[in-house]
């Protein structure tokens, strides 16, 4: 199969869906000629024109609100938010308006929009350009949240997101834009709420999202050399969450670590770990561990930044302890 970058995969998904549905349009900063700072959208304005690839001023709450209104009245906007950190600027439009409209209208109004943004530290971009804020939006009923872990997922999830009748937030890992993966030429969609078992194993389940899937896979390799068979699962969407696949795995392995690049506290990892505790309690041989980014703003200095994100070695070390029964009485 051909291999393309995550950036190309997103670009293809957008182009295909924009050809298919004339009500779709892209709106955001420097999305047209510049094709975004990460060049993900290069070529789209040439094909679809400036009416459907719309450059905005630096006015995030404004263009987010405009997208909500357009979505409520029959368009399918794809909002480009240059950095995930800017979610804080658009929270009202996203969470008070987009997320609640369908419910508040008694199911009569829809807000079919996609918010494309990114996550991920270790790019030396400091505290306001490095955050992984998926937990914030996943907390709000009415929003769906997709977290692609490779080019393949990025394309299939984007296409599903665009056809979904709800507001969907997609977090791409900005460090992965140039990573290649096999992506079929023929059309495919990845349904929401279907986890992907990346690697099978019987000893421990590593549940990882987005940027952390690679980390978990590397940890599984380290562990395999030591005779520990780790199962690696990528939920692909955290809302909706494929609980069943996660539970089945944990019932089999009896141990789990949940890894996500958001902050450790009050995060995605806590939510998933707690569901496993609630629904697979009798199958567990050890507490379910959470591994997130440290509870600190992302520091600029490389000497500090690299300490804040879970590494394959950290994951392997924790897995080893869980499998050896060492953390059962841990506080």
């Amino acid at each position, binding site marked *: 199969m051909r291999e393309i970058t995550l950036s190309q995969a997103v670009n293809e998904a957008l182009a295909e869906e924009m050809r298919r549905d004339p009500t779709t349009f892209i709106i955001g*900063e*420097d999305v047209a*000629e*510049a094709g975004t*700072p990460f060049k993900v959208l290069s070529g789209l304005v040439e094909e679809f024109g400036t009416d459907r690839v719309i*450059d*905005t*001023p*630096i*006015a995030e*709450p*404004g263009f987010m609100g405009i997208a909500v209104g357009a979505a409520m009245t029959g368009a399918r906007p794809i909002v480009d938010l240059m950095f995930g*950190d*800017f979610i804080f*600027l658009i929270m009202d439009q996203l969470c008070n308006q987009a997320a609640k409209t369908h419910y508040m209208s008694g199911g009569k109004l829809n807000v079919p929009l996609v918010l494309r943004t990114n996550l991920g530290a270790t*790019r*030396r*971009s*400091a*505290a*306001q*350009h490095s955050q992984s804020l998926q937990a914030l939006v996943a907390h709000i009923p009415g929003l769906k949240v997709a977290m692609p872990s490779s080019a393949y997922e990025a394309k299939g999830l984007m296409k599903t997101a665009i056809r979904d009748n709800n507001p969907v937030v997609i977090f791409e890992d900005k460090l992965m834009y140039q990573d290649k993966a096999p992506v079929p030429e023929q059309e495919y969609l990845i349904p929401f709420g279907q986890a992907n078992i990346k690697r099978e194993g019987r000893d421990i389940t590593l549940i990882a999202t987005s940027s952390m899937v690679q980390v978990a896979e590397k940890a599984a390799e380290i562990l395999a050399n030591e005779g520990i068979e780790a199962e690696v699962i990528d939920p692909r969407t955290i809302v909706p969450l494929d609980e069943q696949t996660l539970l089945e795995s944990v019932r089999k392995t009896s141990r789990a670590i949940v890894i996500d690049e958001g902050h450790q506290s009050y995060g995605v990892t806590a939510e998933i770990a707690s569901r496993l505790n609630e629904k697979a309690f009798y199958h567990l041989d050890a507490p379910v561990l959470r591994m997130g980014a*440290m*509870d*600190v*703003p992302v*520091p*600029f*200095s*490389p*000497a*500090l930044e690299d*300490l*804040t994100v879970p590494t394959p070695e950290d994951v392997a070390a924790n897995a080893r302890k869980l499998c050896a029964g060492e953390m059962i009485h841990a506080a």
Partner: protein
Amino acid sequence: MASAKTNTEDYLRMYRQMVRIRTFEDNANQLYLSAKMPGLTHMYSGEEAVAVGICEALTDDDRITSTHRGHGHCVAKGADFKKMFCELLGKAEGYCRGKGGSMHIADQSHGNLGANAIVGGSMGIATGSALRAKLQGSDDVTVCFFGDGATAQGLMYEVMNMAALWKLPVIYACENNGYSEYTRTEEIAAGSITARAEAFGIEAFRIDGQDVLAVNELAQKLVARCRKGEGPFFVELETYRYHGHHVGDINREYYRSKAEEKDWRENRDPIVRFRTWLVDQGVASEDEIEAINAEIEKDAADAVAYAEAASYPDTSEVDMHVYAA
């Protein structure tokens, strides 16, 4: 060129500060190109007269808020090269102990409340600083630096409204360099920029940001009036950034022509203009100017060498400073 009533020493300090900014940026760019600097940075080169003209009208008690393109403001407000380069390289002796980097550099000792990586993100902070001055009966003034692109942020209109209602000692300084990222200002700003402030009854000025004396003369007047309770004010300064949006923005002909860049560099350079004026007026000789330039270059080279050799913060610092004691 307009002339302000200042003495020789003031003129030479202004010249020196502008050259210090340009030299700092040339060295920072070099650090990036030689892969010694982590991440990206935004060069202030070309806009020196704005930061220097304004900051020379301020004292250390006056505050400024800065932007992602913040090295110029930081130097103009009096910062030290060594601590700045250490910050850019993520070293422990940097202004923010390596935690902030280029986009968050701050220097409390000279009243610099910090650069900001959120466009428009400092507008509330600057206005709040001015409210504090008023409430506490202090006569310090706050200058809020921001780009033309930041005028699109709603926050600006909320805080200008309050600043005008409450007559706060704040000066909004819009550095209009013609672009926000890869987009021309005309495409992202409808109508006139100064009219935005005027709508709130704020006195607004539009001025050549490449003429350091004109900028300084206006800044002195406005600062003095702010101290008397006549603020807020708004100034739009017409200027130009020589480099790309950030150091990695090399191929930029698709949004900005080489001819345009050349024209600004060759015909409107703020340092060359001021230098010519200084020599013409007999304030300094060519030799004296060259000596100043050489001294600054050496300062910068020493500071870079110092920063390169300096240590990274100890790993134990990673979770320090999350909460104040």
